[in-house]
């Protein structure tokens, strides 16, 4: 078993979580909790795959996926921002809605065969770096590189630019932002849309690059929920989100790959197609998410860091503080 190959595949798998997590960070930084990530990812995966089958152009598939998921996120935006309804319940509804629509429209897609995928490429000089080169920069999907670019860009945008400052203000203290002339409602709609688009991109990354195809709900297999958990672990910071996403990606790959080889580090592999161990291995990502949440929540208390202050609260002009 080659650990380099596992880590290489882990980075690609982690890119899915990266997009979804950064998307949710944008939405939550603006003060809107969107629990519908799983549904939006399924919409993205389904529309990317079906568009690519119909047109043969995976780039078009990517665009349609982002637009479709962004569009359905606006249902949540309208309910929570304009109608001031409960964000948790609305997010759950969005999960049902997204899952249902993608299953109905994706019926029969699983037998549609293969499509032309997004290109894989190696970066000339960087891929020569020992160890890191082959893991991060050799024969990766172009989406993986887009992911690398997104991490610093998202961090810079949130922490060092004027629109980023407005974004944080809207999530921390919307009435103050409103008093300064920032349009709280428009900002929140916009960042929920951004979150939706990135969740759609995450779904498209699955169906066009990491695990090509459409396997109904199993396409995402709960990764949307893991992404929401990673946001808490990341403490709403894109760089920490990247660390968590790639670690989880590597874990997911490891679980698949560890059951293959006969020997492991010179010993008989106890996981070698063992009919029982596999089930426990498959529990690991979810068990780890719980552990990560325990660690993340404790750290948040210790450092007095936490969610954006207005997260989960509708902004109603002229009502109470915050």
């Amino acid at each position, binding site marked *: 078993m080659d650990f380099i190959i596992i880590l290489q595949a882990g980075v690609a798998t982690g890119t899915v979580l990266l997009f979804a997590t950064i998307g949710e960070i944008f939405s939550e930084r603006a003060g809107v909790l969107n629990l519908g990530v799983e549904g939006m990812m399924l919409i993205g995966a389904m529309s990317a795959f079906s568009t690519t089958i119909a047109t043969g152009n995976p780039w078009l598939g990517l665009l349609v996926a982002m637009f479709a998921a962004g569009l359905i996120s606006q249902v949540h935006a309208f309910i929570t921002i304009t*109608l001031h309804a409960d964000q948790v319940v609305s997010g759950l509804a969005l999960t*049902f*809605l997204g899952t249902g629509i993608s299953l109905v429209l994706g019926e029969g897609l699983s037998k549609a065969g293969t499509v032309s995928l997004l290109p894989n490429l190696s970066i000339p000089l960087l891929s020569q770096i020992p160890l890191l080169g082959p893991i991060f920069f050799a024969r990766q999907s172009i989406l993986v590189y887009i992911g690398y670019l997104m991490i610093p860009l998202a961090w810079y945008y949130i922490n060092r630019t004027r629109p980023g400052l407005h974004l944080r203000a809207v999530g921390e203290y919307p009435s103050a932002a409103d008093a300064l002339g920032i349009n709280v409602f428009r900002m929140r709609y916009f960042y929920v849309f951004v979150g939706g688009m990135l969740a759609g991109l995450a779904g498209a990354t699955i169906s066009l690059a990491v695990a090509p195809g459409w396997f109904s709900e199993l396409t995402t297999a709960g990764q949307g929920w893991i992404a929401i958990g990673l946001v808490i672990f990341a403490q709403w910071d894109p760089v920490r989100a990247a660390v968590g996403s790639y670690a989880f990606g590597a874990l997911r790959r490891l679980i698949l790959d560890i059951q293959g080889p006969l020997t492991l580090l010179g010993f008989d592999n106890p996981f070698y197609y063992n009919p029982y161990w596999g089930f*426990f291995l498959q529990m690991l990502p979810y*068990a780890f998410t719980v552990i990560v949440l325990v660690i993340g929540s404790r750290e948040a208390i210790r450092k007095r860091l936490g969610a954006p202050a207005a997260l*989960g609260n509708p902004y109603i002009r002229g009502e109470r503080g915050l």
Partner: protein
Amino acid sequence: MRSRLNSLFDALLPVIATLAALGVGAVMLLVLGANPLEAYGALWVGAFGSTNAFAETLVKATPLLLVALGICISFRGDVINIGGEGQMIVGAILATSVGLTFTGLPGWLVIAMAMLAGFIGGGIWGGIPGVLKAYFNVNEILSTVMMNAIAVQFMNFMLRGPMIDPSQAELASKIPQTARLLEPFRLLRWAPTRLHLGALIAVVLAILVYILLWRTTLGYRIRAVGQNPNASRYAGIDVKRHVVLALLLSGAFAGLAGMIQVYGVNYRMITDGSASGFTGSAGFNGIVAALFGQLHPIWSIPASVLFGALLVGANSMQRMVQIPSALVTALNGLVVVFVVSSEIWRRRRQRRRLAAAKEEDVPPKPDPDTPGKTKVRA
């Protein structure tokens, strides 16, 4: 007069929400190239067209109601339990192993023990996220979802390993299922339909949950913690303990739903590898039913029947007009969308009443039916 009109409007809100959801669903059907009237006709016939169809609707409604009862408790306590699927599975595993172990005991005793086992199994699976929330500040929405995925793999392991049907264990391609329960352990049925005693048990429990929530100290405290944890703490209520209890009880009812599915419908556990293969997604749809029933145990009864009817009707719709039955998942989402959206009218009116009361200097009547607004502590 005006207030009577308003309460009529409140009672009609779910109906309006359903009609709106069906309306959007009709647009989706048109997009899919089906005639909505024909499709909904097939749905209606499939759910209510005959005695047998109606019995099937009630069979599907039973686990929804049991899960919904748990949801009423937890959401009233301001804890969001999305773990019904996993809690059903663990409850069913425990209950099934009781039925397969104590084969020498009388039927009524085994059924009672199995109900207790289902209650305990689901309670453990709900209690863990409860402890994590109360004492480790872990968001229960996420932990319950993760517990679902863990329970599925646990079920797949148990049904292929320790609990596998002995007659399957020797075969080359084993079906992952347990042995069948003995005849006397099965819940009474109204032959020739599949309607079983579990439906009645669920309705009785709905009344008990109503009493629990509004006539006992425990229920009062759970609701108080849900409405205002700080005020409850000052009043001397152990908030953490009641958070755990709310999730534990919520899980316990889902676990009972799992038990009822085994003892009333299938008489064995069988897995296709997914959670919905065993639960039929009742763990999720029960949330929809509870929200639709305004988080009230008694109103959850008709709500569960409605969503049971949608599930049964969707299957016949798939057969008759070739529309994937997953449309129901989308419809469920739409119903919740409209129900949660309609809350704005209720709230607006409450605000107006508060303002009017302030002018007249009369303390406003509190609205006992408005559950605590869910605050997110991520």
